[in-house]
Every structure is written in structure tokens, then in C-alpha cells.
């Protein structure tokens, strides 16, 4: 009841303010009049009585204010008042407001943009039902340093049929198949899955149905599910697509369903996709019958039953693993593990993204310090206004609330424009993002991100507002309004300002050093000699449909024909065909044995990366011959089997002997394991990435080990498009249904391979630059304010004979003191934080003295520069003017 009455009465005085006011007026008037009459009765004159009553009982206006402020409605009213007053005050100093709002907009916008990336990639749960239940199930052999390998089909079926902890489990492997019959033949990203794939992810189709158990069995009709994007782009969103037949690698599949655009296969960013049952896959289906030691299935994913703990799951997997190891000796040493799907998807990018978020947070912190500084200066010049308001009876709380409202207005305005900046930032950043970033298609400014921006605006308002507001509200009206001429300002705000500037410098140092470290690391990374000469080399992939070209003999014949025709083209003599290209495609890793050496222990095979290459490959790629000979045209399928090894392999496995003439046993399963004679040693290439040491390499003549699709590489001074045009013409002259895809110039490919470090270096560099600029503004603010407050003092000094030089020296000393203290604080902070980015650095230690020294030098120089304008003003102080100033 009483709450209701309270609300009703509050609302009444809020909306019928005049009536409530009049009533209070009348009541108070009567009250005071009665008091006055009493006094008169006691013998006072009316005038005396009125004065006495006011002294004793308080003035009408103050009383009214007190009574009004008693109810909750007054809070609403004063907030509204504060808001209008704040807006008015800010409008009166548009320069100040603009600087603050823009600084904030930049800070909040940058933070919001980075947060929208972090939110999409790291925070937002995976877009599947109950994503917490999803795990990937790799096999691992920790003693051999393999923490995540695929699983054999045999182990998979055992696991699928006997486990009691997963509600569904599915294996998948991805590659590209050639889609023909609808426009230009093209490769589509194809995922071969076992039949429970869609039920693991609990995904529903847009049209038709997904796979059921029957589709995964041998002899079933070949079915395919396609993505909405593919459906729209290639099939014109044909509503009758379900039931129609499409051709993949020259084989017909019946479309049974279309997946909505929001559905993605975990780990894959492609949007044009086809899913087919594993059993129907031209490559993987053959392998379903292979023995378990061939760990091939790219990934196994599973959904844990609700309420089952990860320890229970692991215990069950251990049991099954032990049973498998007993049955198949080759499984010995392998353990089945689980890993949360979310962790696997985002694993590699977590640290760099959090680093960026932290860095951009520091930028905002510096911006806050700057604004706090500005506000402090302003509140000093507003101290008279505030003193008058305190003298007129405003309480400390009331003043704080009013000033904080002003800060909140600034913060919210900053947030509003910051949101625009964030939209723009996201739109600019997304195309720059490395395409390997997981889930990057989900990046956008959404409700959560906007909420973040709002919270950030309010938090920053509090952050930059608190110190200046408290210092303003604490001012003493007696001192502010007294006649004593004030020279200089009280120590409190001045110390606070210096403290803020020091903090800014320290934070800027952390950012600058971080940016410097990443830049140095990036420079180191890009100056790594890849082991081949990428300039003027163009590559394209030519794939052979596996149902049409099914035997190695056909592959070899095709490649020979292709090479002959290609090299006959003008300007295309330097061309070759080869297996996986270094860095571009990474690797096929094969186990090998050195003939004549003792057999390695089971499961402890030596491995190297395997590349079939046609004779001119080494000259096209610019890989030097160290010893022996390269391949030539006479190395054919009928000639003795030969191999080339890389220097790294020679050094590691033949440390004290000449490998030439020795024999190695290895083979890519398609043509089986054979013994090959080592005929030459070639230079190392960075096979995986520029940041990783070159691994051991095995090269075999392409004619002796052809593939069903390979990279064509051409070294030519003609442009990329001319080269690709020639490759296309020649390929289509042989078979018009063959796709020529994955066209890249090698310099571009190398660039792409360092896209992630480049992106973070770029962003951190940008943040470092902003931080430096903000710190400079901060130093400028402190010094110029200090000069303007000390005009009087400087005037006296000049009048007493101080030279402009000594005045300049004094100002510079002050700046230097600030920057040096900032540096002194910054160095330990920097050292503490630099440790966090150790993993992101290449050939640079996080405690790199050069970078640290450079960062502090830059800060000192920028500090000196920032104080130059105020220092010049100080030098020109005219004692006559200065002394009249106060």
C-alpha cells in the first residue's frame, strides 16, 4: 500500500509540479507566518521577527529544496536538470566537447570493432545446438609428439558401434571435387562424411533431407547435400533441386537436400559446399578398407550424451583404445582423446586476438587519461562556478552527480559516434582479415556488440570522470571565492595531471614496444629465404576427375601431354608439374626407411615430406642442386626408381656419410612402397611456413609417381593472367572438362602465408601510433597548462633577469622529468606484458633491448616535441603583461 502511495505522490509532484509546489508554498508560508506572529507577540518588530525566523527555521527556498529532494521523484527531476544543464555547458565549449567526443569515439569505436571480431570468433558459441556437447575425437601418440592425428576407418567404426558416451559420432574428410554440367567446370569444396554427420551437429536442412544411416552403406544410391550458397550461385535457387542429379568428378549424385547458409562444416570457411557420404567419395571410399595404421580421416566429431562428463568419456575411450591396440598391434601407442570443438576451432587465433583486444583496451585507457587531464584543467577553470554553487547550498553529492552526468553525456556521445566508427572499422577490417581466420563470416556489429559499446561508454565516463569530479567537488568555496590572489594552482589537481601523463607515457610505451616487437618479428619473418625464388612464378592446379582418369598410367600420360604442349607455347618453356608446393600447399608426410639401416621401432618411423616433380621443377622454383644430379627426361616409369633428398634430410640421416647411391624405401600408397636410389641433394625449402625450419624433403620423378591432380608451375616474365590463359588453353585442348583452379603467383602466396602476422602487426602498429599521438597530446596538455598557470611566476623570473634560454631549459626539464618517470614506470610494465607475446614472435626475444630503447627514445623525442609550443610561449612571456595578469 505505502509503496503505491509513494509512487502516486511522487508521480503527482512530478507531473503536477505546479500544484504540488503551490501547496507546499502555502503550507510553508503559513508555517513561517505563524512563527513570525509568535515572535511579534514576544515583542519584536515585524522586520526583526522575519529575520529571526529565517535564521532559526531556515529560508523558504532552501526548505522547499530539502522537502522536494526527499522523494524519489526529485532524482528523476534533477537528472533531467543535470542532463539539460550538462548539454548546455558542453555546447558552450564546442572545441573541448569535440576533442573529447572524437577521442572517445576513436577509442570506443576501435574497441568495439575488435570486440566484434573477438565476439564472433572466440566468444559466441559455435552455431550448433548445445555446442558444449560437441568434441573432436583425434588419436594421439604423445611419445612421438603427435597430439592430434586423424583416425582409421576401422577404429572409427569400433568406436561408433561400441561407445556408450556419445549420442552421435561422425568422421569427415574434405577435398575438392570438380562440378561439371552447370557453366564452367569448377572445383567445389567437398566434405565426405559418415552418415551421422548432420545429426552430430543437430543441423536441419533448408530443403529436402540430410543423410541417414542407409546412405552411408555400400551399394546405396549416391546422394549429395549442397549448401544454400552453391544452390543459389550455381543452380539459380532452383526449387526443384531436390531429386535432380549433379556431376562431381564425372560421377552422378542425386541432390537430397540443401543446407541453410548459416550452416558451416566446422574448421571450413568455404560457403560453396557439397557433402557426400564417405562411401561415395572417389578418394576416401577406397581407404575404408585399409588397415588401421593409416590414420587418415581428417577429423572425427562427436556429440557427448547429456550429463556425461569428459572424464567418463575419456575413461570409455581408453577402454576402447586398449581393445583396439590388442586387436591391431599397429594401434599400440595411440590413444583416443577428446577436445572441445570450440577450443579446436579457435585454438590458434585466441592469443593474437586477445592480444589485439588488450592493446586496443590500452589505447582506450590512454584516451581516458587524456580526457581526465582535459577535464582536470577545465574543472580548475570552472572552480569559481562550482564554488558559487557550493556557497549557494548545493551539496557535495549533488555537485558530483551533476559533473558525472556531464561525463556520462560525453561518454555516451563518444559511444554513439564510436558505434559508427565500429561499423566502419568492421567493414574495413573484414576484407583485411586473413582468410584462414576461423568463423570470420560471423563477424558483425550485433546486439551483443552494441551492448558492449554502451557498457564501455559508461565505464569510460566513470573512469575519466571520477578523478576530476572528485577534485572539483572537494574544492573549498572560502578559498576559491576569497580575495587572495591565487598564483598557480593547488597541488592536488596538478599532481593528478602529472600522474595521468606519466601513466599515459607508460602505457604508450607498452604498446609501442609491443608494436615494435611484432614489426621486427614480421621483418625477420619476411626476410627469411624460403629456399626457392618466388618471383615471376605462377601456379595453377589442374585436377583430373578420378572416375575418368583412374589409373596412374593415365595420370602420367596426361601430365606428359600437358607439359609437352605447355612448353611449346611461347614464353612458357620454364614450366613444370609437381606435387604439393612448399608453403602454398604444405605437405604430404611419408614414412621412409633407409635401406641397410636397422628397422625403426614400430610406430617410430622417420618421416619426410614427399613431392613428385617433373624435371624442370627445380629450375622453375629456383631450388639449387647441391650435389649429384637433378631429374631428367629419361627418369620414366620404366627406368630405375630414383629420388632426390633435401640438405636437411641428408644432414639428419646421413651425418657422416655420402647419401648419394644409398637407397630409401617409401611410397605414396597409390603406387606403393618402392626402393629408390638417392641421385642428388637439393637445397632446403621452407615447406610448412616461413616461420618453421625447413623439414626433410623427398623428391621423386613425377613420371614415376604421378598424381590425379597437381600444381603446374611456370616461371615466366609474362603476366599472371597471360600465363594462366596459356595453361587453360592447353589444358582444355586436351580435355575441355578439366578445371584449372587455385591460380596464384608465388609472391602472392607467400604474402598470404604471413597474412595473420601481418594483420596483427598492422593493427598493433596502428594502435601504437594512436597511443603515441594521444600521449603527445597528454604531455602537451600538461606542459601548456603548467606554462599558462605559471605565467606570473615566469614573468617575475624574466623581470629578475632570467634568459629565455633558461626558461626553455626549465620547461624542457619538466617535460623530460615527466617522460623519464613515464619510462621508468613503463619499462617494468613492458617487460611484464612482453612475455605474453613470446609465442607470436619470430627470431626476436620479448626482451629485445633495441626495441625497448627505441620505444623510450621515441617517447622522449615526442615528449620534447609536444612541449615545444608551450615552451616557446613561455620564452616569449612579457614580464609587464605577466605581472598584470592576475
Amino acid at each position: 500500500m505505502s509503496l503505491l502511495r509513494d509512487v502516486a505522490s511522487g508521480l503527482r509532484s512530478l507531473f503536477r509540479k505546479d500544484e504540488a509546489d503551490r501547496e507546499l508554498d502555502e503550507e510553508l508560508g503559513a508555517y513561517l507566518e505563524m512563527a513570525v506572529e509568535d515572535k511579534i507577540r514576544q515583542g519584536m518588530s515585524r522586520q526583526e521577527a522575519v529575520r529571526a525566523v529565517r535564521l532559526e527555521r531556515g529560508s523558504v527556498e532552501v526548505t522547499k529544496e530539502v522537502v522536494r529532494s526527499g522523494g524519489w521523484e526529485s532524482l528523476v527531476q534533477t537528472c533531467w536538470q543535470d542532463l539539460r544543464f550538462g548539454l548546455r555547458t558542453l555546447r558552450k565549449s564546442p572545441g573541448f566537447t569535440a576533442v573529447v567526443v572524437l577521442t572517445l569515439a576513436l577509442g570506443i569505436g576501435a574497441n568495439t570493432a575488435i570486440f566484434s571480431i573477438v565476439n564472433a570468433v572466440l566468444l559466441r558459441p559455435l552455431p550448433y545446438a548445445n555446442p558444449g556437447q560437441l568434441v573432436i575425437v583425434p588419436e594421439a601418440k604423445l611419445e612421438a609428439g603427435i597430439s592430434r592425428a586423424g583416425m582409421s576407418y576401422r577404429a572409427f567404426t569400433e568406436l561408433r558401434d561400441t561407445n556408450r558416451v556419445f549420442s552421435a559420432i561422425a568422421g569427415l574428410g574434405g577435398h575438392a571435387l570438380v562440378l561439371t554440367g552447370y557453366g564452367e567446370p569448377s572445383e567445389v569444396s567437398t566434405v565426405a562424411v559418415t552418415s551421422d554427420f548432420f545429426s552430430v551437429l543437430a543441423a536441419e536442412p533448408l530443403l529436402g533431407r540430410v543423410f541417414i544411416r542407409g546412405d552411408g552403406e555400400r551399394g546405396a544410391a549416391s546422394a549429395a547435400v549442397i549448401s544454400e550458397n552453391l544452390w543459389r550461385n550455381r543452380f539459380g535457387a532452383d526449387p526443384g533441386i531436390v531429386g535432380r542429379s549433379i556431376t562431381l568428378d564425372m560421377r552422378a549424385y542425386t541432390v537430397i537436400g540443401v543446407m541453410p547458409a548459416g550452416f558451416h562444416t566446422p574448421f571450413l570457411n568455404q560457403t560453396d559446399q557439397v557433402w557426400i557420404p564417405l562411401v561415395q567419395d572417389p578418394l576416401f571410399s577406397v581407404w575404408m578398407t585399409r588397415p588401421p595404421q593409416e590414420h587418415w580421416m581428417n577429423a572425427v566429431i562427436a556429440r557427448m550424451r547429456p550429463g556425461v562428463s569428459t572424464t567418463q568419456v575419456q575413461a570409455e575411450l581408453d577402454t576402447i583404445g586398449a581393445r583396439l591396440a590388442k586387436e591391431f598391434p599397429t594401434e599400440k601407442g595411440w590413444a583416443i582423446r577428446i577436445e572441445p570443438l570450440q577450443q579446436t576451432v579457435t585454438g590458434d587465433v585466441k592469443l593474437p586476438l586477445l592480444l589485439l583486444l588488450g592493446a586496443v583496451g590500452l589505447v582506450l585507457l590512454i584516451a581516458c587519461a587524456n580526457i581526465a587531464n582535459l577535464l582536470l584543467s577545465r574543472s580548475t577553470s570552472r572552480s569559481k562556478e562550482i564554488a558559487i554553487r557550493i556557497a549557494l547550498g548545493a551539496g557535495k553529492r549533488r555537485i558530483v552527480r551533476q559533473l558525472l552526468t556531464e561525463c556520462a553525456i560525453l561518454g555516451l556521445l563518444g559511444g554513439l559516434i564510436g558505434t559508427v566508427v565500429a561499423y566502419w572499422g568492421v567493414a574495413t577490417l573484414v576484407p583485411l582479415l586473413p582468410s584462414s581466420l576461423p568463423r570470420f563470416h560471423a563477424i558483425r556489429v550485433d546486439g551483443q556488440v552494441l551492448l558492449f559499446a554502451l557498457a564501455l561508454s559508461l565505464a569510460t565516463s566513470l573512469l575519466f570522470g571520477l578523478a576530476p569530479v572528485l577534485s572539483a567537488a572537494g574544492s573549498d568555496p572560502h578559498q576559491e571565492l576569497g580575495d587572495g590572489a591565487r598564483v598557480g594552482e593547488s597541488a592536488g589537481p596538478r599532481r593528478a595531471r602529472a600522474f595521468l601523463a606519466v601513466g599515459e607515457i607508460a602505457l604508450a610505451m607498452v604498446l609501442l614496444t609491443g608494436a615494435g616487437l611484432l614489426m621486427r618479428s614480421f621483418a625477420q619473418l619476411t626476410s627469411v629465404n624460403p629456399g626457392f625464388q618466388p618471383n615471376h612464378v605462377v601456379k595453377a592446379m589442374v585436377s583430373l576427375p578420378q572416375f575418368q582418369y583412374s589409373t596412374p598410367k593415365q595420370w602420367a600420360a596426361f601430365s606428359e601431354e600437358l607439359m609437352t604442349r605447355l612448353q611449346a607455347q611461347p614464353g612458357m618453356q620454364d614450366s613444370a608439374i609437381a606435387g604439393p608446393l612448399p608453403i602454398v600447399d604444405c605437405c604430404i608426410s611419408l614414412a621412409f626407411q633407409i635401406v641397410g639401416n636397422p628397422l625403426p621401432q614400430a610406430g617410430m618411423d622417420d618421416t619426410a615430406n614427399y613431392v613428385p616433380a617433373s624435371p624442370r621443377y627445380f629450375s622453375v622454383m629456383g631450388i639449387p642442386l647441391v650435389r649429384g644430379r637433378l631429374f631428367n627426361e629419361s627418369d620414366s616409369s620404366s627406368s630405375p626408381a630414383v629420388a632426390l633428398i633435401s640438405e636437411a634430410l641428408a644432414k639428419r640421416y646421413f651425418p657422416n656419410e655420402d647419401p648419394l647411391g644409398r637407397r630409401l624405401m617409401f611410397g605414396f600408397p597409390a603406387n606403393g612402397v618402392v626402393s629408390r636410389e638417392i641421385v642428388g641433394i637439393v637445397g632446403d625449402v621452407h615447406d610448412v611456413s616461413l616461420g618453421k625450419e625447413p623439414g626433410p624433403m623427398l623428391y621423386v620423378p613425377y613420371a614415376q609417381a604421378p598424381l590425379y591432380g597437381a600444381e603446374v608451375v611456370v616461371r615466366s616474365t609474362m603476366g599472371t593472367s597471360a600465363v594462366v590463359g596459356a595453361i587453360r588453353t592447353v589444358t582444355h585442348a586436351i580435355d575441355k572438362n578439366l578445371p584449372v583452379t587455385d591460380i596464384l603467383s608465388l609472391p602472392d602466396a607467400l604474402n598470404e602465408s604471413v597474412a595473420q602476422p601481418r594483420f596483427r602487426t598492422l593493427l598493433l602498429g596502428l594502435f601504437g601510433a594512436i597511443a603515441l599521438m594521444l600521449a603527445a597530446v597528454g604531455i602537451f596538455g600538461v606542459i601548456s597548462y603548467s606554462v599558462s598557470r605559471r605565467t606570473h611566476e615566469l614573468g617575475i623570473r624574466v623581470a629578475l633577469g632570467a634568459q629565455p634560454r633558461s626558461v626553455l631549459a626549465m620547461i624542457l626539464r619538466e617535460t623530460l622529468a615527466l617522460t623519464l618517470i613515464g619510462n621508468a614506470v613503463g619499462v617494468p610494465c613492458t617487460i611484464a606484458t612482453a612475455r605474453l607475446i613470446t609465442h607470436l614472435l619470430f627470431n626476436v626475444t620479448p626482451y629485445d633491448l633495441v626495441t625497448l630503447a627505441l620505444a623510450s627514445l621515441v617517447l622522449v623525442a615526442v615528449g620534447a616535441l609536444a612541449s615545444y609550443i608551450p615552451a616557446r610561449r613561455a620564452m616569449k612571456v612579457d614580464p609587464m603583461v605577466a605581472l598584470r595578469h592576475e
Partner: protein
Amino acid sequence: MPEKQTDLVQGTLDMLILKTLALEPMHGYGISVRMEQVSKGVFRLNAGSLFLAIQRLLRDGLIEGEWKPTENNRRAKYYTVTRKGRKRLSNETREWVRQVAAIARILEAS
């Protein structure tokens, strides 16, 4: 400073006003005069504190106000204690007496 003298324990003023009004309905000035008289000048009420307390009591439904003419033919708002107010007063009085007795015992013990 008169205000110092009304610097009472939180809530005590409300109780005193209730007690004063429980004797007879009264207007604001009447309340303050009565309290001064009874307390022999110890409690001199500032108008702000008085009307703030009255507003609080009104909103809690402990008293009710009504405009009436005064003996000098002036209009004033007279306040009456409601039933809820009387109940609150008797509870608080009992509690107050209990506390004062306890405090007195402690103070006398030393």
C-alpha cells in the same frame, strides 16, 4: 546552532512527530512549537527537517493531512495519525524504552 539539537538518531524525529500528533491533530508549526515546549527547548526544529519528515510519514501512510482553517482564520494543513501510524508508534515506543533501559544499564554499570 538549532540544527545541531535535532541531529537525532535516525528515525527518532519521525517517532517524536507521531507522538506529538497522537495527542491531537496539528499543523506543521504546531508540531514544532509543541516539541520545543515539551522538550524544554532542546529540540528546535528546522523547517526543512520537519516538512521532510512529514512528507516521509505521509508517504508511508502513517499520517494523513487535511486543509482546515486555524484559530486565526488562516488555512493550514492539519495532520492526523492513522491507525497504521498508531501501531507503528506503540511498537517504536516499546522498542525505544527497551533500548534506553539497556543503554542506561550499561552506562550505570561502569
